[in-house]
Protein backbone atom coordinates (compact mmCIF):
# COMPACT_ATOMS: atom_id res chain seq x y z
CA UNK A 1 0.00 0.00 0.00
CA UNK A 2 2.83 2.40 0.91
CA UNK A 3 4.54 1.50 -2.39
CA UNK A 4 1.36 2.28 -4.26
CA UNK A 5 1.12 5.62 -2.45
CA UNK A 6 4.68 6.51 -3.37
CA UNK A 7 4.24 5.43 -6.98
CA UNK A 8 1.03 7.41 -7.23
CA UNK A 9 2.65 10.53 -5.78
CA UNK A 10 5.42 10.36 -8.33
CA UNK A 11 2.97 9.81 -11.18
CA UNK A 12 0.82 12.71 -10.02
CA UNK A 13 3.74 15.10 -9.66
CA UNK A 14 5.07 14.38 -13.12
CA UNK A 15 1.76 14.36 -14.99
CA UNK A 16 -0.78 16.54 -13.21
CA UNK A 17 0.29 19.82 -14.82
CA UNK A 18 -0.08 18.51 -18.36
CA UNK A 19 -3.33 16.73 -17.61
CA UNK A 20 -4.73 19.88 -16.02
CA UNK A 21 -3.91 21.88 -19.14
CA UNK A 22 -5.53 19.22 -21.27
CA UNK A 23 -8.70 19.34 -19.17
CA UNK A 24 -8.68 23.12 -19.15
CA UNK A 25 -8.21 23.22 -22.91
CA UNK A 26 -11.13 20.87 -23.21
CA UNK A 27 -13.57 22.62 -20.92
CA UNK A 28 -12.35 26.21 -20.67
CA UNK A 29 -13.48 26.19 -17.09
CA UNK A 30 -11.06 26.04 -14.16
CA UNK A 31 -13.44 24.32 -11.77
CA UNK A 32 -14.43 21.71 -14.31
CA UNK A 33 -10.76 21.20 -15.18
CA UNK A 34 -9.98 20.57 -11.50
CA UNK A 35 -12.86 18.12 -11.21
CA UNK A 36 -11.72 16.28 -14.32
CA UNK A 37 -8.13 16.25 -13.12
CA UNK A 38 -9.26 14.74 -9.85
CA UNK A 39 -11.49 12.18 -11.58
CA UNK A 40 -8.66 11.21 -13.89
CA UNK A 41 -6.27 10.56 -11.03
CA UNK A 42 -8.87 8.70 -8.99
CA UNK A 43 -9.19 6.37 -12.00
CA UNK A 44 -5.42 6.15 -12.25
CA UNK A 45 -5.25 5.06 -8.62
CA UNK A 46 -8.03 2.52 -9.02
CA UNK A 47 -6.44 0.97 -12.07
CA UNK A 48 -2.77 1.31 -11.25
CA UNK A 49 -2.52 -2.45 -10.76
CA UNK A 50 -3.87 -3.00 -14.28
CA UNK A 51 -1.13 -0.93 -15.83
CA UNK A 52 1.26 -3.40 -17.41
CA UNK A 53 4.02 -1.13 -18.67
CA UNK A 54 3.21 -2.07 -22.26
CA UNK A 55 2.61 1.61 -22.90
CA UNK A 56 4.25 4.63 -21.37
CA UNK A 57 2.47 5.62 -18.19
CA UNK A 58 1.94 9.17 -19.48
CA UNK A 59 0.23 7.77 -22.60
CA UNK A 60 -2.01 5.66 -20.41
CA UNK A 61 -2.90 8.63 -18.21
CA UNK A 62 -3.55 10.84 -21.22
CA UNK A 63 -5.93 8.23 -22.56
CA UNK A 64 -7.78 8.12 -19.25
CA UNK A 65 -7.96 11.91 -19.20
CA UNK A 66 -9.25 12.06 -22.78
CA UNK A 67 -11.97 9.50 -22.00
CA UNK A 68 -12.88 11.37 -18.82
CA UNK A 69 -13.14 14.67 -20.69
CA UNK A 70 -15.21 13.11 -23.48
CA UNK A 71 -17.58 11.48 -21.00
CA UNK A 72 -17.90 14.80 -19.20
CA UNK A 73 -18.76 16.67 -22.36
CA UNK A 74 -21.05 14.05 -23.90
CA UNK A 75 -22.97 12.39 -21.10
CA UNK A 76 -23.52 15.56 -19.11
CA UNK A 77 -24.59 17.49 -22.21
CA UNK A 78 -22.62 20.51 -21.09
CA UNK A 79 -23.14 23.91 -22.57
CA UNK A 80 -21.12 24.36 -25.72
CA UNK A 81 -17.66 25.55 -24.87
CA UNK A 82 -17.76 28.31 -27.50
CA UNK A 83 -20.57 29.96 -25.61
CA UNK A 84 -18.83 29.68 -22.28
CA UNK A 85 -15.37 30.89 -23.05
CA UNK A 86 -16.01 34.47 -24.19
CA UNK A 87 -18.14 34.98 -21.09
CA UNK A 88 -15.46 33.59 -18.86
CA UNK A 89 -12.82 35.61 -20.62
CA UNK A 90 -14.95 38.71 -20.16
CA UNK A 91 -15.66 38.26 -16.46
CA UNK A 92 -12.10 37.43 -15.66
CA UNK A 93 -10.56 40.11 -17.80
CA UNK A 94 -9.24 42.09 -14.84
CA UNK A 95 -7.35 39.08 -13.56
CA UNK A 96 -5.25 38.81 -16.63
CA UNK A 97 -1.89 40.40 -17.11
CA UNK A 98 -0.63 40.78 -20.66
CA UNK A 99 0.89 37.30 -20.58
CA UNK A 100 -2.25 35.79 -19.18
CA UNK A 101 -4.28 37.55 -21.82
CA UNK A 102 -2.28 35.75 -24.46
CA UNK A 103 -2.88 32.45 -22.67
CA UNK A 104 -6.60 33.22 -22.40
CA UNK A 105 -6.70 34.05 -26.09
CA UNK A 106 -4.95 30.80 -26.92
CA UNK A 107 -7.49 28.81 -24.88
CA UNK A 108 -10.27 30.74 -26.58
CA UNK A 109 -8.91 29.70 -29.96
CA UNK A 110 -8.51 26.09 -28.84
CA UNK A 111 -12.14 26.20 -27.81
CA UNK A 112 -13.11 27.03 -31.40
CA UNK A 113 -11.61 23.75 -32.61
CA UNK A 114 -13.47 20.48 -32.84
CA UNK A 115 -13.36 18.05 -29.91
CA UNK A 116 -10.76 15.71 -31.42
CA UNK A 117 -8.68 18.64 -32.64
CA UNK A 118 -8.63 20.19 -29.17
CA UNK A 119 -7.24 17.05 -27.64
CA UNK A 120 -4.58 16.61 -30.31
CA UNK A 121 -3.40 20.20 -30.24
CA UNK A 122 -3.00 20.27 -26.46
CA UNK A 123 -0.74 17.24 -26.77
CA UNK A 124 1.19 18.88 -29.59
CA UNK A 125 1.61 22.02 -27.50
CA UNK A 126 2.86 19.86 -24.65
CA UNK A 127 5.37 18.41 -27.14
CA UNK A 128 4.33 14.81 -26.82
CA UNK A 129 6.03 12.60 -29.41
CA UNK A 130 3.88 11.89 -32.46
CA UNK A 131 3.74 8.10 -31.95
CA UNK A 132 2.37 8.73 -28.46
CA UNK A 133 -0.26 11.18 -29.74
CA UNK A 134 -1.21 8.66 -32.42
CA UNK A 135 -1.68 5.96 -29.79
CA UNK A 136 -3.76 8.15 -27.49
CA UNK A 137 -5.97 9.59 -30.21
CA UNK A 138 -6.29 6.31 -32.11
CA UNK A 139 -5.21 7.83 -35.43
CA UNK A 140 -2.50 6.34 -37.64
CA UNK A 141 0.75 8.25 -37.54
CA UNK A 142 0.59 9.15 -41.24
CA UNK A 143 -2.89 10.62 -40.97
CA UNK A 144 -1.97 12.31 -37.72
CA UNK A 145 0.85 14.32 -39.30
CA UNK A 146 -1.54 15.69 -41.91
CA UNK A 147 -4.17 16.39 -39.30
CA UNK A 148 -1.72 18.15 -36.98
CA UNK A 149 -0.50 20.30 -39.83
CA UNK A 150 -4.09 21.43 -40.53
CA UNK A 151 -4.90 22.03 -36.85
CA UNK A 152 -1.75 24.11 -36.37
CA UNK A 153 -2.68 26.20 -39.37
CA UNK A 154 -6.25 26.68 -38.19
CA UNK A 155 -5.21 27.53 -34.65
CA UNK A 156 -2.65 30.08 -35.84
CA UNK A 157 -5.24 31.68 -38.15
CA UNK A 158 -7.76 31.87 -35.33
CA UNK A 159 -5.19 33.39 -32.99
CA UNK A 160 -4.18 36.08 -35.47
CA UNK A 161 -7.82 36.75 -36.28
CA UNK A 162 -8.77 37.24 -32.60
CA UNK A 163 -5.67 39.27 -31.83
CA UNK A 164 -6.69 41.85 -34.40
CA UNK A 165 -10.06 42.37 -32.72
Amino acid at each position, binding site marked *: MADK*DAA*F*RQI*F*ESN*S*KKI*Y*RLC*YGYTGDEDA*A*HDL*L*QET*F*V*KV*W*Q*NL*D*KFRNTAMISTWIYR*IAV*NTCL*TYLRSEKRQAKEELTPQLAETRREEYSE*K*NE*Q*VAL*LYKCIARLEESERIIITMV*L*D*ELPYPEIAEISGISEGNLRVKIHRI*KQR*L*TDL*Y*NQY*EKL
Partner: protein
Amino acid sequence: MKNFDHLLSVWQEQPKLPKLSVDDVLKQVKKGINKLGIRVLWSIISISVAIATTAGLTLFAVFEKRLSYIGLFVLLIGMIVYLVLQIGDYRTIARHDLTLNPGAYLNSLKEYQKRRAYLYGRFYYAFVLMICVGISLYTVEVLNNKPFIFRVIYYAVCTAYILFCTFYLKDKLIQREEKRVSYLIERLERLEEQFE
Protein backbone atom coordinates in the same frame (compact mmCIF):
# COMPACT_ATOMS: atom_id res chain seq x y z
CA MET B 1 1.18 38.00 -37.65
CA LYS B 2 2.12 35.31 -35.16
CA ASN B 3 3.28 31.87 -36.14
CA PHE B 4 2.74 28.55 -34.41
CA ASP B 5 6.04 28.80 -32.52
CA HIS B 6 4.70 31.89 -30.80
CA LEU B 7 1.62 29.92 -29.69
CA LEU B 8 3.89 27.17 -28.48
CA SER B 9 5.86 29.61 -26.33
CA VAL B 10 2.62 31.13 -24.94
CA TRP B 11 1.41 27.65 -24.04
CA GLN B 12 4.64 26.56 -22.45
CA GLU B 13 5.14 29.69 -20.42
CA GLN B 14 1.62 29.79 -19.11
CA PRO B 15 1.49 30.01 -15.35
CA LYS B 16 -1.61 27.83 -15.22
CA LEU B 17 -1.04 25.26 -12.53
CA PRO B 18 -3.51 22.90 -10.93
CA LYS B 19 -4.52 23.90 -7.43
CA LEU B 20 -5.14 20.29 -6.58
CA SER B 21 -2.48 18.63 -4.48
CA VAL B 22 -1.59 14.97 -4.54
CA ASP B 23 -2.69 14.73 -0.90
CA ASP B 24 -6.16 15.97 -1.82
CA VAL B 25 -6.44 13.31 -4.49
CA LEU B 26 -5.15 10.58 -2.20
CA LYS B 27 -7.62 11.66 0.48
CA GLN B 28 -10.38 11.49 -2.08
CA VAL B 29 -9.50 8.02 -3.33
CA LYS B 30 -9.09 6.65 0.15
CA LYS B 31 -12.31 8.09 1.38
CA GLY B 32 -13.83 5.63 -1.07
CA ILE B 33 -17.49 5.07 -0.65
CA ASN B 34 -17.47 4.67 3.09
CA LYS B 35 -20.72 6.54 3.56
CA LEU B 36 -22.82 3.46 2.84
CA GLY B 37 -20.79 1.37 5.23
CA ILE B 38 -20.94 4.01 7.96
CA ARG B 39 -24.74 4.17 7.73
CA VAL B 40 -25.02 0.39 8.09
CA LEU B 41 -22.55 0.48 10.95
CA TRP B 42 -24.71 3.03 12.78
CA SER B 43 -27.74 0.78 12.30
CA ILE B 44 -25.76 -2.11 13.78
CA ILE B 45 -24.75 -0.03 16.79
CA SER B 46 -28.31 1.25 17.36
CA ILE B 47 -29.91 -2.19 17.13
CA SER B 48 -27.18 -3.66 19.37
CA VAL B 49 -27.98 -1.08 22.07
CA ALA B 50 -31.69 -1.88 21.74
CA ILE B 51 -30.97 -5.62 22.01
CA ALA B 52 -28.79 -5.10 25.08
CA THR B 53 -31.50 -3.01 26.76
CA THR B 54 -34.24 -5.54 25.96
CA ALA B 55 -32.04 -8.45 27.08
CA GLY B 56 -31.29 -6.60 30.34
CA LEU B 57 -34.98 -6.04 30.89
CA THR B 58 -35.75 -9.70 30.20
CA LEU B 59 -33.08 -10.92 32.59
CA PHE B 60 -33.37 -8.47 35.45
CA ALA B 61 -36.90 -7.08 35.51
CA VAL B 62 -39.53 -9.09 37.34
CA PHE B 63 -42.90 -9.55 35.68
CA GLU B 64 -45.94 -11.34 36.98
CA LYS B 65 -47.35 -12.43 33.67
CA ARG B 66 -45.66 -14.74 31.18
CA LEU B 67 -47.00 -12.58 28.38
CA SER B 68 -44.46 -9.87 29.25
CA TYR B 69 -41.56 -12.32 28.88
CA ILE B 70 -43.00 -13.71 25.65
CA GLY B 71 -43.35 -10.13 24.34
CA LEU B 72 -39.73 -9.37 25.20
CA PHE B 73 -38.56 -12.61 23.56
CA VAL B 74 -40.46 -11.82 20.39
CA LEU B 75 -38.88 -8.35 20.37
CA LEU B 76 -35.44 -9.87 20.91
CA ILE B 77 -35.87 -12.41 18.12
CA GLY B 78 -36.99 -9.70 15.67
CA MET B 79 -34.11 -7.44 16.60
CA ILE B 80 -31.49 -10.20 16.52
CA VAL B 81 -32.56 -11.32 13.03
CA TYR B 82 -32.41 -7.67 11.93
CA LEU B 83 -28.92 -7.36 13.45
CA VAL B 84 -27.70 -10.50 11.68
CA LEU B 85 -28.97 -9.18 8.34
CA GLN B 86 -27.35 -5.80 8.93
CA ILE B 87 -24.02 -7.42 9.80
CA GLY B 88 -24.30 -9.44 6.59
CA ASP B 89 -24.91 -6.24 4.62
CA TYR B 90 -21.95 -4.55 6.26
CA ARG B 91 -19.66 -7.47 5.52
CA THR B 92 -20.82 -7.51 1.92
CA ILE B 93 -19.95 -3.88 1.44
CA ALA B 94 -16.72 -3.93 3.43
CA ARG B 95 -15.37 -7.09 1.82
CA HIS B 96 -13.51 -5.27 -0.95
CA ASP B 97 -11.75 -1.95 -1.04
CA LEU B 98 -13.01 0.19 -3.90
CA THR B 99 -9.69 1.92 -4.21
CA LEU B 100 -7.80 -1.34 -4.58
CA ASN B 101 -10.19 -3.54 -6.48
CA PRO B 102 -13.04 -1.68 -8.20
CA GLY B 103 -14.25 -4.77 -10.10
CA ALA B 104 -14.74 -6.87 -6.98
CA TYR B 105 -16.28 -3.89 -5.21
CA LEU B 106 -18.77 -3.50 -8.03
CA ASN B 107 -19.93 -7.11 -7.57
CA SER B 108 -20.23 -6.58 -3.82
CA LEU B 109 -22.30 -3.50 -4.47
CA LYS B 110 -24.72 -5.45 -6.68
CA GLU B 111 -25.02 -8.13 -4.01
CA TYR B 112 -25.58 -5.43 -1.40
CA GLN B 113 -28.35 -3.95 -3.53
CA LYS B 114 -30.16 -7.31 -3.59
CA ARG B 115 -29.73 -7.83 0.15
CA ARG B 116 -31.09 -4.36 0.91
CA ALA B 117 -34.09 -4.98 -1.34
CA TYR B 118 -34.88 -8.03 0.81
CA LEU B 119 -34.30 -6.13 4.06
CA TYR B 120 -36.60 -3.29 3.07
CA GLY B 121 -39.07 -5.60 1.33
CA ARG B 122 -40.38 -8.87 2.72
CA PHE B 123 -38.26 -8.85 5.85
CA TYR B 124 -39.39 -5.38 6.86
CA TYR B 125 -43.03 -6.48 7.19
CA ALA B 126 -42.05 -9.56 9.20
CA PHE B 127 -39.89 -7.34 11.42
CA VAL B 128 -42.68 -4.81 11.99
CA LEU B 129 -45.12 -7.63 12.78
CA MET B 130 -42.73 -9.07 15.38
CA ILE B 131 -42.13 -5.66 16.94
CA CYS B 132 -45.88 -4.94 17.10
CA VAL B 133 -46.66 -8.34 18.63
CA GLY B 134 -43.75 -8.02 21.05
CA ILE B 135 -44.72 -4.53 22.22
CA SER B 136 -48.38 -5.47 22.53
CA LEU B 137 -47.67 -8.52 24.69
CA TYR B 138 -45.08 -6.70 26.80
CA THR B 139 -47.27 -3.71 27.50
CA VAL B 140 -50.31 -5.72 28.66
CA GLU B 141 -48.82 -5.98 32.14
CA VAL B 142 -46.64 -2.87 32.11
CA LEU B 143 -49.49 -0.54 31.25
CA ASN B 144 -52.04 -2.40 33.34
CA ASN B 145 -52.01 0.11 36.18
CA LYS B 146 -51.79 3.17 33.98
CA PRO B 147 -54.84 5.37 33.33
CA PHE B 148 -56.92 4.46 30.29
CA ILE B 149 -56.10 7.71 28.49
CA PHE B 150 -52.36 7.04 28.90
CA ARG B 151 -52.75 3.62 27.29
CA VAL B 152 -54.74 5.06 24.44
CA ILE B 153 -52.09 7.72 23.81
CA TYR B 154 -49.28 5.15 24.08
CA TYR B 155 -50.82 2.78 21.53
CA ALA B 156 -51.81 5.66 19.25
CA VAL B 157 -48.25 7.02 19.25
CA CYS B 158 -46.81 3.54 18.60
CA THR B 159 -49.25 2.90 15.76
CA ALA B 160 -48.62 6.33 14.24
CA TYR B 161 -44.85 5.82 14.43
CA ILE B 162 -45.02 2.39 12.76
CA LEU B 163 -47.31 3.74 10.04
CA PHE B 164 -45.00 6.72 9.53
CA CYS B 165 -41.98 4.39 9.19
CA THR B 166 -43.79 1.98 6.87
CA PHE B 167 -45.42 4.41 4.50
CA TYR B 168 -43.08 7.40 4.54
CA LEU B 169 -39.68 6.95 6.15
CA LYS B 170 -39.00 3.52 4.65
CA ASP B 171 -39.72 4.71 1.12
CA LYS B 172 -37.57 7.80 1.58
CA LEU B 173 -34.67 5.75 2.92
CA ILE B 174 -34.98 3.18 0.15
CA GLN B 175 -35.10 5.87 -2.52
CA ARG B 176 -32.08 7.69 -1.13
CA GLU B 177 -29.99 4.58 -0.76
CA GLU B 178 -31.10 3.06 -4.06
CA LYS B 179 -30.21 6.28 -5.85
CA ARG B 180 -26.77 6.28 -4.29
CA VAL B 181 -26.06 2.60 -4.93
CA SER B 182 -27.31 2.80 -8.54
CA TYR B 183 -25.14 5.86 -9.13
CA LEU B 184 -22.09 4.06 -7.77
CA ILE B 185 -22.81 0.97 -9.86
CA GLU B 186 -23.26 3.07 -12.98
CA ARG B 187 -20.01 4.92 -12.40
CA LEU B 188 -18.04 1.77 -11.66
CA GLU B 189 -19.48 -0.02 -14.70
CA ARG B 190 -18.52 2.91 -16.88
CA LEU B 191 -15.05 2.79 -15.41
CA GLU B 192 -14.79 -0.96 -16.02
CA GLU B 193 -15.79 -0.56 -19.68
CA GLN B 194 -13.13 2.05 -20.10
CA PHE B 195 -10.36 -0.33 -19.09
CA GLU B 196 -11.51 -3.48 -20.86
